[in-house]
């Protein structure tokens, strides 16, 4: 059964288009999605996911699960960058450690959306509030990462930190376009009437999978290009990029079992914790810790952790949750 799910996932066109993107880079094709389009596709996905999540929540109403999920989400978003930082510090310099810790504490919206697609294909229900959990987990890791950086920077080097204040960085992380769009769509989904949400379905549902496949093609191209910069960066980097997601996943699966989350919610939360940011956090780090090596933290999350999660991670976590929950 687990092999079935894995193969089903591998033969999903959405995932196959990701491979096509990787392949295109590998054979040095000039296939390239214009950046205006990439941006549009990612906004489209957030728009749809937010709206559907909000509409779903309006239907189901509030429940205790929401609070459990949001508390877990916030807790993990604060905890993961902490232990990631101390693991990283054993091998890497302060700049890279802080940047990578923030990267892995935050989340990847595309991985989340791919997991939602996976759940829908396996007819597994999940709560609309998961969208809120995702939005909630985007920023805290940036703050933790910068606080750790500032703390140790003052101790170690007497302070090389750049001028933007932590407050400013937090501000930017919270008003980040993706966060605003998904939270906004989520709220709009909550207040809109059933009829009007229904009228949007051909856009938000009909063409969704196709747009996702197209976007994953683009992500494959991007991941493929980024992979090159990891050459020669050593086994520690590679191990970290796979083992930390697995560790985070194991931790949250355990907590999901303790707190008796539903299978769908648990999978999404696992995916959020196991995923790493390659949009919001790198942008924040490029500005706030410019000495951190962007040739490290971007490809780790984008070219290793992201493919790992969408190809193997999601079906694996689902298999484990199927064993443990009920």
């Amino acid at each position, binding site marked *: 059964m687990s092999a079935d799910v894995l193969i089903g996932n591998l033969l999903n066109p959405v995932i196959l288009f990701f491979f096509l993107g990787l392949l295109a880079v590998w054979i040095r094709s000039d296939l390239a999605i214009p950046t205006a389009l990439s941006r549009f596709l990612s906004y489209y996905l957030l728009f749809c996911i937010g709206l559907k999540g909000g509409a779903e929540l309006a239907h189901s109403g509030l429940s205790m699960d929401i609070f459990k999920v949001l508390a877990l989400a916030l807790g993990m978003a604060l905890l993961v960058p902490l232990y990631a930082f101390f693991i990283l510090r054993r091998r890497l310099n302060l700049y890279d450690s802080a940047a990578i810790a923030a990267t892995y504490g935050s989340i990847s919206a595309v991985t989340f959306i791919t997991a939602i697609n996976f759940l829908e294909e396996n007819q597994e229900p999940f709560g609309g509030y998961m969208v809120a959990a995702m939005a909630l987990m985007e920023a805290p890791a940036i703050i933790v990462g910068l606080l750790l950086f500032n703390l140790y920077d003052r101790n170690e080097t007497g302070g090389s930190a750049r001028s933007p204040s932590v407050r400013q960085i937090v501000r930017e992380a919270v008003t980040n376009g993706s966060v605003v769009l998904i939270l906004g769509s989520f709220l709009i989904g909550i207040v809109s009437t059933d009829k009007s949400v229904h009228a949007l379905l051909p856009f938000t549902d009909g063409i969704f999978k196709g747009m996702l496949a197209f976007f994953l093609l683009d992500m494959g191209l991007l991941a493929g290009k*980024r992979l090159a910069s990891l050459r020669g960066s050593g086994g520690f980097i590679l191990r970290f990029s796979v083992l930390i997601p697995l560790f985070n996943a194991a931790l949250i699966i355990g907590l999901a079992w303790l707190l008796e989350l539903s299978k769908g919610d648990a999978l999404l939360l696992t995916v959020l914790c196991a995923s790493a940011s390659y949009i919001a956090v*790198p942008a924040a780090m*490029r500005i706030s810790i*410019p000495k951190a090596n962007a040739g490290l933290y*971007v490809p780790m999350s984008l070219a290793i952790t992201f493919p790992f999660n969408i190809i193997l991670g999601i079906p694996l976590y689902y298999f484990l949750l199927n064993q443990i929950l009920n």
Partner: protein
Amino acid sequence: MQAYKKLEIVINTLEVRRLVSLLNEHEIGGYTYWKGARGRGDRGLQDGEGLTEAFSNAYFLVGCTEPEFERIREPIRALLADAGGVCMVSDVQWLVH
């Protein structure tokens, strides 16, 4: 025609707002800029890829008088020291119209 200083500045796209404010604060008569520049420098490769503008540059062209230049020279130097980027200065003739 009139003698002017020409400044050419390359800076990370996310710093555009800061540089524009700086030029406005120091009451520089005009400027032009565009985004979408890629490049390589001390802070590595900015290849313009990805879903964020963080890895691409903007290019600023500022034609100004000598006194204007003296006014912004130090602030621009400080901005670049903090945020990275380059600034090249040269002499041009301004076609007055």
